[in-house]
């Protein structure tokens, strides 16, 4: 009795393309809604069984910023995202849009306008693209809406589907999407979720160069309106699209600024890029 369509051969999925024009519809909301959004982290500390993963991090990201978090493995980038979203217990203070986030359960943090993605694309594999986006759009639905079938496609879902270039694949189960398409679907889910703060954990991992380019432009456009934090390893991607960068090292903020400023910081050059050329100037830090 299952109403699954047979799996679509990968060849039929085609090359997806992002649609920046459709994004304008998604971002049509008045900027005033986002004016008072800013992420303010003070003295954030996360420890697991005595191991201190994040050690007193201060971080401020304002609306309209596209902030990249970088750092070597184990620097605490993902842990910070986990702490903001309630996945890891933390002390200190995390405020977004005037709301204190620490100590709240994850679903309440999400309702406060915080959305996130994971390193491994975690879409609902057995549900269609449309169903994925429809669920993402529906956290505030009342019981009587939830208990009925979806009639028609909500406008925001349609616009998001076109934005992330998956409109032609709306009825395909998300499990058969290509890796990059899954990442795009995640971004689409953040958009329909109406996240004001988007926390993206390695959003371009595994994407082709062309896909990275498109994704970067999309994130830039979203970042102009909302608060976006990207955890990323790809330096090329960072140089092209970051408007500001925070470098983490062993759970602390090592450096912060524009790409050029951070790249010129000798401490960063030493611990992150691992070049020995400036090692003489680093010790006093």
């Amino acid at each position: 009795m299952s109403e699954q369509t047979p799996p679509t051969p990968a060849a039929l999925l085609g090359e997806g393309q992002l649609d920046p024009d459709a994004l304008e519809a998604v971002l049509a909301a008045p900027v005033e809604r986002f004016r008072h959004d800013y992420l303010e982290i003070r003295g954030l500390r996360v420890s697991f069984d005595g191991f201190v993963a994040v050690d007193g991090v201060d971080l401020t990201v304002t609306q309209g910023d596209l902030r990249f978090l970088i750092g070597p493995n184990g620097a605490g980038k993902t842990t910070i995202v986990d702490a903001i979203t309630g996945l890891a217990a933390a002390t200190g203070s995390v405020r977004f849009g005037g709301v204190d986030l620490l100590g709240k359960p994850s679903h309440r943090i999400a309702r406060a306008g915080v959305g996130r993605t994971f390193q491994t694309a975690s879409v609902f594999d057995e549900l269609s693209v449309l169903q994925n986006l429809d669920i993402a759009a529906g956290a505030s639905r009342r019981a009587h809406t939830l208990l009925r079938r979806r009639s028609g496609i909500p406008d925001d879902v349609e616009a998001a589907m076109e934005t992330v270039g998956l409109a032609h694949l709306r009825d395909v189960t998300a499990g058969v999407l290509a890796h990059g398409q899954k990442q795009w679907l995640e971004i689409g889910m953040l958009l329909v979720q109406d996240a004001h703060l988007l926390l993206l954990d390695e959003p371009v991992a595994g994407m082709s160069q062309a896909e990275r380019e498109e994704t970067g432009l999309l994130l830039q456009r979203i970042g102009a309106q909302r608060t976006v934090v990207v955890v990323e390893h790809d330096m090329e991607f960072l140089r092209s699209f970051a408007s500001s960068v925070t470098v983490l090292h062993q759970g602390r903020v090592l450096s912060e600024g524009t790409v050029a400023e951070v790249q010129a910081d000798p401490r960063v050059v030493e611990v992150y890029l691992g070049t020995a050329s400036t090692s003489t100037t680093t010790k006093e830090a």
Partner: protein
Amino acid sequence: MSAVWRSPRARVIVGTGIAAVVLFVVAPGMLSSFRLNLLAKFLCLAMVAVGIGLAWGRGGMLTLGQGVFFGLGGYMMAMHLKLEDAGPGGVPDFMTLYGDGVVPGWWEPFRDPVFTLVAIVVLPTVLAALLGLAVFTRRVRGAYFAILSQALAAAFAILLIGQQKVTGGTNGLNGFRSFFGFDLADPVNKKMLYFIAAGTLLVMVLLVRLLMRSRWGELLVAVRDQENRVRFLGYNPAVVKAGAFAVAACFASIGGALFTPIVGIISPADVGVVPSIVFLVGVAIGGRATLLGPVLGAVAVSWAESSLSESFPSFWTYFQGALFIVVVAFLPNGIATLGQVRLRRRARAEAPPDEPTAEPPHDEVAVEPSTSGRTA
């Protein structure tokens, strides 16, 4: 015909029509009253299965303790029937036999038929909802949830055995003479009970179909597969899961309540660990994530059990075990998914060998994406 099959609405109407004809015309016409009564019993067990299909197949909760809710419904109905038999102000026979002949205060409300019927529907549902919220909020899941629910079933059975004065102990409650004023010895009334069971089951299946196809049904599958992701979209997964668990409990309770007058006895042997597992076996064999798999699986397994035990009394247990192993090993999603597996085989055979793989390679049926219900 194929055009009719394609429209979901037509499919429901045709399917419901066929089921109604089979249940209300063919079965009563072909089966002896003994067999019809047996079928009525199986339909009661199938009600539990429908609920398990929703909670386990769609929601990923391995409910190994549905005997508790089945028993709650069954015992509440039995209490009312005993009090009814005893007459106004009377004392059920077993109480004078084992105890001091005083009806305990918590039995008294069950003299009222309306209270009993409401309690059968509401009490287990509320209990399951509260229990579900408490357990799922603490993120108890998978095997831990299964063990917890199984322990509840064991504890419930032990409690019933221990309180012989008020529950009848190991013997349970039996010897009912009437059902809401109808003489249970009359074959016509037995047939009426069968029709009530068949109608109830049909309504339950249609209700679950509505739930499965609703937005909530999609959300339930999402919770099963990516509970954390759902959380970060702003939903509380505990509420979604507790809802499915409550529906399953409600169905189990109603099944138990009809089981009692149809079989004529409810005892700890019907509610403990073993029956709770047997409920699950039928669902697993039929296909837990499908709509009709649990129903057909439960009825087929019970039917096979009773007819095989008649011919080979000691053979059934082995057969059941073997069937379970075969299904789990070769059709992990149940017999109802046989068609899908064949379709996929054919699709794979026709696909060109050098097809570009944008999707992760599928490992036979084991990680087949369409119905792999995880027990999260």
